[in-house]
């Protein structure tokens, strides 16, 4: 018997914080190696251009410059940037580490300088002269697939990368039986993830033992270790990848990038460590973007608001080449398009398109925010068209709590859920009748006040290996050291999520040891030998059970040793509060320190007992987890300027069992901040020449402190039955649930003016224009 709730479930402050708040943590830019050189990239200013000639002589001659390399120097020695997504009939360009004959997006690396310090490297990059011949540029994905468009990659003969279809149920029957079909075109704008720490890496080669160490600001050191050997000539078992302190990722660092391979290659080639730190401008231009889908959506509904089927056709702008998961992200949208509703039939066709822009890939939520936005907007449009209450429509289409596990038309098995309870709790916290009254009074006074609801479900805990490109299991190891201290090693790679704390909570409770005795290690492939890293809200949900499995193994092993030391049979030993106790004679007991001592000194072990107290495990999830929730937002729109003010925000999230509610709250609040940005002001803009107009924080707004409303936060707890911790994951919930709630609120505020739908972001100007068009108010 242990006390499983002594730490688990408590809002504990984090063990990782002291080093961070004192400024003594080590991010990749903080590394200093003897003889370290510095790389700087020269990038194409053109979205599409033939590279006629690159003149590097002047740069090479500058004092302090060690080398200048172009595609001609390195592309035949480094493999192409890998894409792990398996999509049938995918047409893919070969994306070399530096541009070859053509540069095909603004920011495409064309040459790299290595110098004795970063200042000189930057100076030398300016001294490289490139002769570009501009080529026709493709920026609009819809025009890219209409006839007569120039081609992003002439050698592919088309701008279409793939066409992916999802189809289930009898869609024709659904539309035949419909009383009404609700239609809407919707644009899901391109976004830039913008972690505050840009990317960066340090590569160091040891010629003696022929090992390469790559420190990289990455979410996925293990994936990098798996994939980098395909790009540089170092075998996997001579490669060590370390994710030091990582300053945020949000999917932008769930990737293997050309710069990582190049720095590794150059470190070997030059025989010195090479560091590269991305600038913000590079980060905006040449680190993955997210979202960017445009589509036409049709829903078949009955008069009373039951949804019979959805037809969707969307165009996904992949940008100019494929990063790790680029083509897979839009397909996730198709998977969860039915949201938290019983919708018997669906067809979705997704056309992945190449344009002369940076590649899109997984940005927080990856495919699910798109789906949730679409279905949640559609539910409101249905309510508008049928003159029904948006809440009533939702309740009508939810599966009942006793229908779980719930099988969706897209073949997902929602593990557990009670969507009604979360909605009800959110309404309670919002003081729904009073909020509705407030809206009605405001409207009566001529103000634009709106309430928006979104009920969401998402896919977390990625994932069952059969459904993942490269295995979805997680690995862990727990070791009781000879001193009785506990070392935990996880294959996930936290960078802000706080698993050094939440895993310690789990381990301390289950082993009955002081939490201060537990240390959690991660992010170094020489320490955490296996892992599948951190993304898709998987750290706790998939990484945690691997640790639990180790603990179970250790307790079983220790029981045998305890029985031997207590001179009783194993069946007579009980594990209780960190001690192994003889059931009938509780004062006959041993603790971990004694057991660990014996296990390692190994002079008094039972027969055939392996020395040591350590276990490692691979946990293979049998299913994804499906957290859900309801967000309710009230906004007021300034009729004259179009400004939106959030006046109330209620978030009820159900992420199953909460190991640390303080961390859960932080994850949700952080996610909502991304959503406020997406709903109201964030968008990545390229002009018609493929120039990025949002290449700095000066032009790409992130939410700031004063943009954040006071939240009312609540939760329901529906444990995941398939997960040993009952946990579901919470890393992306805020970005998934919040955007449609805000959008629905703004549209509710504008509804009385006859405005049906506006695209994101709902900027003041967009709203002002719509108000002007609908109220006949002249501009200006």
């Amino acid at each position, binding site marked *: 018997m242990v006390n499983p709730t002594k730490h688990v479930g408590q809002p504990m402050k984090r063990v990782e914080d002291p080093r961070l708040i*004192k*400024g003594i943590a080590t991010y990749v830019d903080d590394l200093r190696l003897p003889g370290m050189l510095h790389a700087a990239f020269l990038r194409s200013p053109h979205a599409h251009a033939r590279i006629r000639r690159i003149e590097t002589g002047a740069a090479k001659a500058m004092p302090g410059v060690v080398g200048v390399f172009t595609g001609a120097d390195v592309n035949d020695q480094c493999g192409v940037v890998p894409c792990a997504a398996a999509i049938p009939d995918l047409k893919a360009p070969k994306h070399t580490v530096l541009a070859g004959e053509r540069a095909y997006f603004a920011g495409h690396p064309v040459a790299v300088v290595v110098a004795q310090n970063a*200042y000189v490297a930057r100076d030398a990059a300016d001294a490289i002269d490139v002769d570009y011949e501009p080529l026709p540029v493709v920026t609009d994905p819809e025009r890219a697939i209409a006839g007569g468009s120039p081609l992003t990659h002439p050698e592919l003969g088309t701008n279409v990368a793939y066409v992916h279809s999802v189809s289930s149920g009898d869609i024709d029957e659904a539309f035949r039986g419909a009383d009404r079909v609700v239609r809407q075109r919707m644009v899901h704008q391109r976004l830039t993830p913008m972690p505050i720490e840009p990317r960066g890496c340090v590569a160091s080669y040891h010629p003696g033992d022929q090992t390469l160490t790559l420190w990289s600001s990455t979410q996925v050191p293990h994936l990098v270790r798996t994939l980098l050997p395909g790009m540089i000539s170092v075998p996997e078992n001579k490669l060590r990848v370390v994710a030091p302190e990582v*300053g945020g990722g949000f999917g932008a660092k769930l990737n293997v990038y050309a710069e990582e391979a190049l720095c590794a290659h150059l470190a070997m080639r030059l025989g010195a460590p090479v560091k590269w730190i991305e600038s913000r401008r590079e980060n905006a231009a040449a680190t993955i973007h997210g979202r960017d889908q445009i589509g036409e959506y049709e829903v078949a509904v009955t008069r009373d608001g039951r949804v019979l089927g959805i037809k969707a056709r969307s165009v996904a702008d992949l940008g100019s080449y494929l990063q790790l998961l680029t083509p897979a992200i839009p397909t996730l949208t198709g998977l969860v398009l039915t949201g938290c509703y019983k919708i018997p039939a669906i067809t979705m066709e997704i056309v992945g398109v190449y344009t002369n822009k940076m590649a899109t890939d997984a940005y927080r939520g990856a495919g699910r925010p798109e789906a949730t936005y679409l279905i949640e907007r559609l539910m409101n449009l249905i309510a508008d068209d049928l003159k029904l209450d948006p809440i009533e429509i939702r309740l009508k289409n939810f599966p009942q709590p006793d229908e779980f596990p719930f099988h969706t038309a897209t073949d997902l098995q929602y593990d557990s859920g009670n969507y009604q309870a979360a909605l009800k709790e959110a309404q309670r916290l919002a003081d729904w009748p009073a909020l509705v009254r407030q809206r009605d009074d405001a409207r009566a006074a001529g103000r634009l006040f709106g309430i928006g609801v979104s009920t969401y479900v998402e896919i977390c805990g990625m994932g069952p290996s059969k459904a993942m490109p490269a295995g979805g299991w997680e690995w862990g190891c727990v070791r009781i050291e000879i001193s009785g201290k506990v070392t935990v090693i996880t294959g996930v790679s936290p960078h802000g999520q706080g698993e050094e704390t939440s895993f310690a909570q789990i381990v301390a409770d289950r082993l009955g040891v002081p939490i201060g005795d537990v240390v959690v290690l991660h992010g170094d492939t020489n320490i955490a030998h296996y892992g599948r890293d951190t993304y898709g809200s998987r750290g706790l949900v998939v990484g945690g059970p691997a640790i639990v499995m180790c603990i179970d193994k250790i307790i079983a092993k220790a029981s045998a040793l305890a029985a031997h030391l207590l001179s009783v049979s194993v069946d007579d030993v009980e594990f209780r509060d960190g001690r192994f106790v003889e059931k009938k004679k509780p004062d006959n007991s041993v603790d971990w320190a004694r057991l660990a001592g014996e296990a390692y000194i190994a002079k008094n072990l039972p027969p055939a007992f392996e020395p040591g107290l350590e276990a490692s495990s691979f946990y293979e999830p049998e299913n994804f987890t499906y957290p859900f929730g309801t967000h309710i937002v009230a906004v007021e729109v300034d009729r004259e300027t179009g400004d939106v003010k959030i006046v109330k925000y209620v978030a009820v999230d159900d992420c199953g069992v909460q190991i640390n509610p303080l961390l859960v709250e932080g994850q949700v609040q952080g*996610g*909502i901040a991304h959503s406020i940005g997406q709903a109201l002001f964030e968008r990545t803009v390229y002009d018609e020449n493929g120039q990025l107009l949002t290449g700095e924080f000066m032009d790409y707004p992130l939410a700031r*402190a004063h943009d*954040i409303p006071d939240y009312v936060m609540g939760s329901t707890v529906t444990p995941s039955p398939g997960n040993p911790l009952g946990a579901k994951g919470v890393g992306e919930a805020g970005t998934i649930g919040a955007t449609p709630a805000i959008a629905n609120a703004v549209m509710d505020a504008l509804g009385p003016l006859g405005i049906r739908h506006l695209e994101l972001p709902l900027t003041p100007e967009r709203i002002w224009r719509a108000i002007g068009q609908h109220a006949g108010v002249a501009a200006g």
Partner: protein
Amino acid sequence: MTQTIRVRINGTAREHAVEPRLLLVHYLREVCGLTGTHIGCETSICGACTVLVDGKAVKSCTMLAVQADGSDVTTIEGLARNGSLHPVQEGFWECHGLQCGYCTPGMIMAGVEILQRHARPTREQIAEGLKGNLCRCTGYVHIIDAIERAAGARRAERGVGGDLKW
């Protein structure tokens, strides 16, 4: 061509010959080895590089090291005194005011200045005081909690945080 500068950093007098173009943030990080001050942008927006120069919060990426000649600079490393955390640091720890930690040193330094300006700041004053600091992880609520807590204000009743000591 270099220029000799004398700067007091976290109470220690330093003297270096530096290139005029050396940014204060690079001086702190590369010359003095104080890497707690971070860099998150080049347009002076993100605030990750915030330090105190003669007691005032400044973005050290937007000041030349030569401009700091003769000044007193406090960085995140110099905030804790005699081994005990500054109240703003405490607040960030207690209230889960950080996740990845990258914006945190700048946030904390901005928070210190907010408390110099307002002994008992409102949440709006704190938010306004943080306008020059971007965080992409926390959504700011816990950061505002942290600074409010440091001000000695009663902890906002959010049912979290507790008084659990590690």
